[in-house]
């Protein structure tokens, strides 16, 4: 297989415009003859469904929740980037592009990132027109704040609920199209597999989560917007239902999976506090605008925070990175927190936490100002920990948050299967080895509102389609496969629960394929995952039946896929013998413990192709060419 990213020619600033002109168009009257399936209703899926329907395509939209308003985009707190330069602080499309390429540690595709920066401004315009209540200054103009990895204020926000507001905007646009009959909405459906006919993605097989029925849905193109795979770690900031199944099934049908080992560990999360814990909660990165990160200077100093005076504190980020201070990118902040804790300087009961302290900001700006900026985040922290962050500093620790890896896509966001498009966190394209804060919302909406409407059209206009109905043999076969998998899961009747397996897998991934990795650990993890997977298929117990609402069965299917996918992550991490962004192999670090890239040998996206049950997946390399941003060691000092 030859990967062709289909990057348009010409100077980077003109590529997208040129491509828009070159893409074929579908006549308005013909659009209604095309069916497009969109799986997922987060920022990417919701916006894509709405926009494709506005254009006149027949859209069938699927979500796992009871309503298309609940996808985990809703939990994004801090904001969305755009190169508007409203604060007049020197921002530009070029700077946003530059920051994002650099922040991703030079493992993203330049052309995609530039397009993202270009579109960022249109997103803000559109979202304001939709009625998103962004924060505003006294004069009524839009307010901005700063985020990690940038020295300009380019982040637009709606209190600490930016993701919620943007998602509800997409949901409202989608709702309008549903009521106009342009979108058929299928809620409480889980995609179990992709149907590929003559090399084209032509439909999906889903399970109706209420009555357990397997349904077949056909279309001319399928758009996956099914999010990331952070829950492979069991504990993450992802929602409970977030899973890799749709993407992984597509992988097994021929879509290459790119850079699966690129996972983002977010520095500011509420620390783990018990084995019963079901998930971790993020405290927005925007808090690092005003909060100062510190630990006691002396290892083992267990005095309460307020008894440790200024001279006895180590503000390690400010110390080490004077120009970016507490606003270094996430991977850098996380690794430094871990380093401090490894030295015994961690705080709290477990010693696995650092302080995020607002005392100075409250003294400087008043409690009222801080409350207005971060009130809901402080409240959230208080609910979880029972501590008041206005009085005592927050305790934070890194947690799995986002996955930069995903299905490989070309410039049109099409995977290696014709007609299968992948957007948002589910694809791999724009964030390289580390995503900057406030960039995920930007990417999801750029993909859904402003890219896919054109590129799907280009595909449909230029493709011959055979007549396909859900009675086609390929649909029957795919349904049978999905059904027999469910039957098998229900019949094992073993002694361990699904969650029990999931937790064990999560620990393996966290210990050996988490914030710091080494070859020995990765080799070990691979064996452990294989053993655990074998045990799962012999010893898991899934109560209930397949014919009704059965949450245990849903989880079992997802964990089964994670048990295979985890191994792919480990393989990818082993193959990438360098450190970059979120992928930190201990053997490759600079003297200052920063990630040391090997551009000579690893300046590529690794796209893994499934080659059969017993066979090793095969890696294909898309070389990354940097013509506009010079490859350099990232420095935030």
């Amino acid at each position, binding site marked *: 297989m030859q990967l062709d990213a289909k990057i348009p020619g010409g100077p980077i600033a003109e590529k997208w415009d040129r491509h828009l002109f070159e893409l074929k168009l579908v006549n308005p009257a013909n659009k209604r003859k095309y069916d497009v399936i969109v799986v997922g209703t987060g920022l990417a899926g919701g916006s894509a469904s709405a926009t494709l329907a506005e254009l006149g395509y027949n859209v069938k939209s699927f979500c796992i929740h009871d309503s298309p308003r609940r996808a985990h985009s809703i939990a994004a707190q801090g904001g969305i980037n755009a190169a508007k330069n409203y604060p007049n602080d020197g921002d530009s499309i070029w700077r946003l592009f530059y920051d994002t390429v650099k922040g991703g540690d030079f493992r993203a595709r330049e052309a995609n990132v530039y397009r993202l920066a270009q579109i960022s401004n249109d997103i803000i315009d559109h979202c304001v027109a939709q009625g998103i209540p962004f924060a505003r200054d006294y004069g009524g103009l839009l307010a901005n704040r700063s985020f990690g990895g940038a020295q300009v204020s380019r982040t637009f926000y709606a209190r600490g609920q930016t993701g919620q507001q943007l998602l509800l905007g997409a949901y409202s646009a989608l709702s309008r199209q549903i009521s106009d009959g342009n979108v058929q909405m299928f809620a409480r459906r889980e995609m179990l597999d992709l149907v590929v006919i003559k090399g084209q993605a032509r439909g999906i097989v889903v399970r109706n989560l209420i009555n357990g029925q397997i349904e077949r849905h056909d279309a001319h193109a399928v758009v996956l917007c099914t999010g990331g795979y952070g829950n492979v770690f069991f504990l993450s900031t992802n929602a409970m239902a977030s899973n890799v199944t749709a993407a992984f099934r597509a992988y097994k049908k021929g879509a290459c999976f790119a850079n699966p080992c690129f996972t983002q560990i977010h520095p500011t999360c509420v620390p783990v506090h018990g084995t019963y814990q079901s998930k971790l909660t993020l405290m927005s990165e925007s808090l690092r605008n005003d909060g100062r990160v510190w630990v006691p200077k002396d290892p083992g100093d267990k005095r309460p925070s307020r008894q440790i005076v200024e001279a006895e504190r180590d503000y390690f980020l400010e110390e080490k990175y004077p120009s970016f201070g507490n606003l270094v990118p996430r991977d850098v902040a996380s690794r430094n927190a871990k380093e401090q804790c490894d030295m015994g300087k961690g705080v709290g009961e477990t010693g696995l936490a650092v302080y995020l302290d607002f005392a100075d900001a409250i003294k400087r700006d008043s409690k009222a100002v801080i409350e207005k900026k971060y009130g809901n985040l402080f409240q959230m922290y208080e609910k979880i920990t029972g501590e008041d962050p206005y009085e005592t500093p927050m305790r934070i620790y890194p947690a799995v948050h986002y996955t930069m890896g995903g299905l490989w896509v070309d410039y049109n966001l099409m995977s290696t299967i014709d007609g299968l498009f992948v957007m948002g966190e589910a694809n791999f394209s724009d964030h390289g080895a580390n995503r900057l804060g406030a960039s995920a919302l930007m990417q999801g909406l750029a993909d859904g509102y402003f890219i896919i409407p054109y590129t799907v059209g280009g595909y449909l206009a230029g493709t011959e389609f055979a007549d396909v109905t859900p009675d086609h043999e390929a649909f029957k076969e795919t349904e049978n496969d999905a059904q027999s998998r469910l039957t098998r899961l229900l019949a094992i009747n073993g002694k361990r*629960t699904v969650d029990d397996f999931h937790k064990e897998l999560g620990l393996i991934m966290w210990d050996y394929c988490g914030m710091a990795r080494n070859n020995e650990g990765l080799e070990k993890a691979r064996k452990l995952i294989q053993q655990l997977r074998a045990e799962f298929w012999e010893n898991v117990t899934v109560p209930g039946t397949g014919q009704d609402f059965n949450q245990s069965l849903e989880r079992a299917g997802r964990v089964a896929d994670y048990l295979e996918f985890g191994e792919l992550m480990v393989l990818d991490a082993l193959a990438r013998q360098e450190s970059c962004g979120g992928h930190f192999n201990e053997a490759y670090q600079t003297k200052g413990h920063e990630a040391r890239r090997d551009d000579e040998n690893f300046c590529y996206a690794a796209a893994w192709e499934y080659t059969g049950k017993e066979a090793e997946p095969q890696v294909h390399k898309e070389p990354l060419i940097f013509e506009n941003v010079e490859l350099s060691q990232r420095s935030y000092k």
Partner: protein
Amino acid sequence: MTKTINLTLKIWRQSGPEVKGRLETCQATDISTDMSFLEMLDVINEKLTLEGKVPIAFDHDCREGICGSCGAVVNGRAHGPEKGTSLCQLHMRHFSDGDTVVIEPWRAKAFPIIKDLVVDRSALDIIIQAGGFISANTGGAQDANAIPVPQDAAEKAMDAAACIGCGACVAACPNAAVMLFTGAKISQLALLPQGRPEAAKRAIKMLQAMDGLGFGNCTNERECEVECPKEISIVNIARMNREFFKAAFFSEEK
């Protein structure tokens, strides 16, 4: 500090929409007070699974109080006893050793039960589909700063927009009215200049949809405001009523 407590749970069990449900008693032992309420249910479910029984079905997802999936009536109160808290954010430190805790699904004619604590809230989507949007197609919007929005209006719009669509307002209302939910969306969009062109149509269509779905009427009980996990004010209901009357008297919308 972390400690553990023992509780007696009385949980609503109902295997399907047409089946008669009942409260079943079970013991929750050694529950850490740092657990969230849903983590406590996870522990119970793990136990039920290992005993070969069917675990309790409940909707949940983000577990940080923003997706609006979860919700149950705990000891007679939607989302439990804490103010401004969704069920996933309710922690066990608010319960005492030996407590009996009664857990029931949202009860409203418009929210039929699917299984145990899971209800069908699609009526809320239908209300939004009737008009809870601004008809702005993608592309072609003017610069975001072209129309200034007074900060005060933007803040009030945000207060209303914070609704997570969980349905607690309906469950808390003695009439099972959905006025707070509907009023919040109408208010958000009515407060912003971008939402004005469709304000009259929106108010009429959304209220019509609401009336047709089996929800009750508002009789100013104010229970919704008390139980709303996002503490959305009933001022939004008043604003909705104003929008509705304005539309009915002074516009040509029907």
